């Protein structure tokens, strides 16, 4: 194990997979000479050259579409979009093409494409650079969706994404890029999709945290233990498609309570979907309604005090968890 930052872990994954497979190449805005807006691709242009690390013009829909075309004809492109908000410009290529091409052409081709992008609030970037859109991509059959919260998962899931033959939406988090974590030094540290992580074991309430919220959920669990003598089980789904629902259900069978935490909007969110699945499949195990803690139902404001209250923090999660235990 080595202690590395989330961004370095991603960088290692890209570097290793590029060494491993000649078909892997990178495209994106300012990923080369500039070394990436968040420095994830640092040093890769120098190491692999312009053939394999390509700075693109600011044309999100077209660079993703080119990734799709190249993936259909023998490459394994990894496209970086500077933020999740910018991915909306590429939504046509992601949904109508990347996700549907295999199905609509009767399985004749595959689209081994990875589209990476960071999301999240906390840096006062306002309403066009700070959102969380896992739910949009989760909605689409044909896509795989990853949202790693630790350095180890960032590396392991990205390597898995690159090796997979399906189009993958790989959602990073701006706040996490600088965080350190223990990462296996093994070149073959690959984290399979569809395996939730149990971040903390407990028997009183299940807290599912998506992306950065997995960390916030852990903080909340600590408070619940220290101040309320409650043992929360914290789960990080790691990938939303495929989703490891079994681990979540098993936990709910044990705790009979479930709180879902996400940074995105409440309506049609990850939590809305997950709450539906939990109540459909574990209704008889639930002792309280499934609770959700989400981002506020507003565009992300710029001003610091407003931004602070527009996304979830540990005290809200603690409150939501306690509410599920009210009648005990």
């Amino acid at each position, binding site marked *: 194990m080595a202690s590395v930052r989330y961004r370095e872990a991603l960088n290692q994954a890209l570097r290793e997979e590029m060494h491993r497979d000649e078909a892997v*190449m990178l495209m994106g805005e300012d990923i080369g000479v500039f070394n990436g807006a968040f420095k994830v691709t640092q040093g890769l242009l120098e190491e692999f050259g312009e053939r394999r690390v*390509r700075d*693109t*013009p600011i*044309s999100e*829909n*077209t*660079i*993703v*579409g*080119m*990734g*799709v*075309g*190249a*993936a*259909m*004809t*023998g*490459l394994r*492109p990894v496209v970086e979009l500077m933020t999740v908000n910018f991915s909306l410009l590429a939504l046509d*290529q992601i949904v*109508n*093409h990347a996700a549907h*091409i*295999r*199905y*609509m*052409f*009767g*399985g*004749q*081709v595959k689209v081994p494409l990875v589209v990476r992008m960071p999301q999240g609030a906390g840096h006062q970037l306002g309403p066009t650079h700070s959102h969380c859109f896992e739910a949009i991509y989760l909605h689409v*059959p*044909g896509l*795989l969706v990853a949202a790693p919260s630790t350095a180890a998962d960032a590396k392991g899931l990205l390597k898995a994404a690159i090796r*997979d*033959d*399906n189009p993958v939406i790989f959602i990073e988090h701006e706040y996490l890029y600088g965080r350190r974590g223990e990462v296996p030094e093994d070149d073959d540290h690959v984290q*399979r*999709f*569809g*395996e*939730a992580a149990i971040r903390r074991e407990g028997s009183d309430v299940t807290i599912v945290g998506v992306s950065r919220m997995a960390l916030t959920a852990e903080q909340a669990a600590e408070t619940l233990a220290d101040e309320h003598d409650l043992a929360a089980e914290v789960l990080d789904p790691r990938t939303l*498609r*495929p*989703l*490891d*629902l*079994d*681990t979540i259900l*098993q936990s709910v*069978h044990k705790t009979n309570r479930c709180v879902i935490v996400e940074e995105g909007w409440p309506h049609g969110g990850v939590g809305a*979907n997950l709450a*539906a*699945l939990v109540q*459909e*499949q574990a*209704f*008889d195990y639930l002792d309280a309604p499934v609770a959700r803690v989400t981002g506020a139902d507003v565009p992300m404001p710029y001003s610091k005090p407003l931004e602070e209250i527009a996304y979830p923090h540990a005290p809200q999660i603690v409150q939501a968890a306690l509410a599920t235990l009210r009648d005990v």
Partner: protein
Amino acid sequence: MLRYRRFEMAERVVAPEERTAAPLPEPERAREWLATMMLIRRFEERAGEMYAKAKVGGFLHLAIGEEATILGAARALRPGDYMISTYRSHGHALARGTAPEAVMAELFGRVDGCSRGRGGSMHMFDLQRRFMGGYGIVGGNLPLAAGMGMACDYLGTEDAVLCTFGDGAANQGTFGETMNLAALWRLPVVFLVSNNQFGMGTALERHSAVTELHKRGESFGVPGLRCDGMDVADTFTVCAQALERSRSERQPVLIEARTYRFRGHSMADPEEYRTREQVEQWRARDPIVSFGQRLSREGVLGEGELARLDGEAIERVDRAVDFADSSPFPEPPSLYDDVYVLGDQVGGWYSVDARTPTPHRGEDERAMPRHQLPGGAGYESEHTTSTARPIGAVQGLPDETDAEESDAEETDAEGANPDRARPDRARPDRAEREG
């Protein structure tokens, strides 16, 4: 039975200025061009008839009148080159060599369709012949073409890409973005704007400030050429030049082919945006008639040969209709086939809406040992260490399980998760409540 309009050869005199300078190919090839254009025409006419009989659903966009543009472009390609098209793509598939049976079966939504009944009229595909698809999103195929060109370049092949789209697509953002990128990265892609002069019902001069579309690439560094899209030899010659240049000089070329569709945009088109006179003027330049006339004039086509070729095309299309009619519809359990490449990462997935072939609750399915599930597929591999078992909407998923997976299956069946066997706890309650 459909009454085909005969190709009236003798009644029309070709004005000298209409005569093309483009050279004819070898006689055998010239006859094949004519025969394939006829096949496309007869296919489209018959498809229209089948649409009227409700054998074909959805939208149906026919390319009648545009056969020379389609075939001239397709014949300029090498077998290894890629062709990519739009929602008006039956003719491109046929020109590339896809069997009419497979194209008609696709229109009928049958399993033997070239996209297995998943795509329909707008989404024909034939990987084997490097026909990389028809696409329903206007302008959506341009980035894909550039990506394919990038792959040709990256892999060091001599292959090139020919991307056709309509005049309407020239106004999409992807047009400018793709021209720029293709020129910047010197990609071997020929962009062919099939200018049939209407973006659906909006005339060229009403949707484009600059109507000479071949000039639209210049500011991006993409040289433009023009060809007569009603003349197969001219279209072939210009496309072949462009492909050669694109291949050897590593740069994109934009070609504008002026053409016309004799039928409406789709089958549901009252054609209020153009005059009958205009349609008739263009019909007088029918690409099949004029090429047939030229072949007769130059002695390539003997007496009665045109009628013979036409008869063969009609027969071939008849066979395609018979084939499509007898091909089965896809089985309901195949609904979930090919959404994902199944393998280590994805062996199936939770379907919130698992509806085939009989309605069932996810809970029932999950309680069932996996080997009893129809199709038997699941989410397993030798790498699994967690308890993750996202069972998909598994029915009909291709059985890709291997020996190792069978081993894993046993473990699962024995109940790695005993809670799975408890739906009986839930069901009586539910029945009581419902009762």
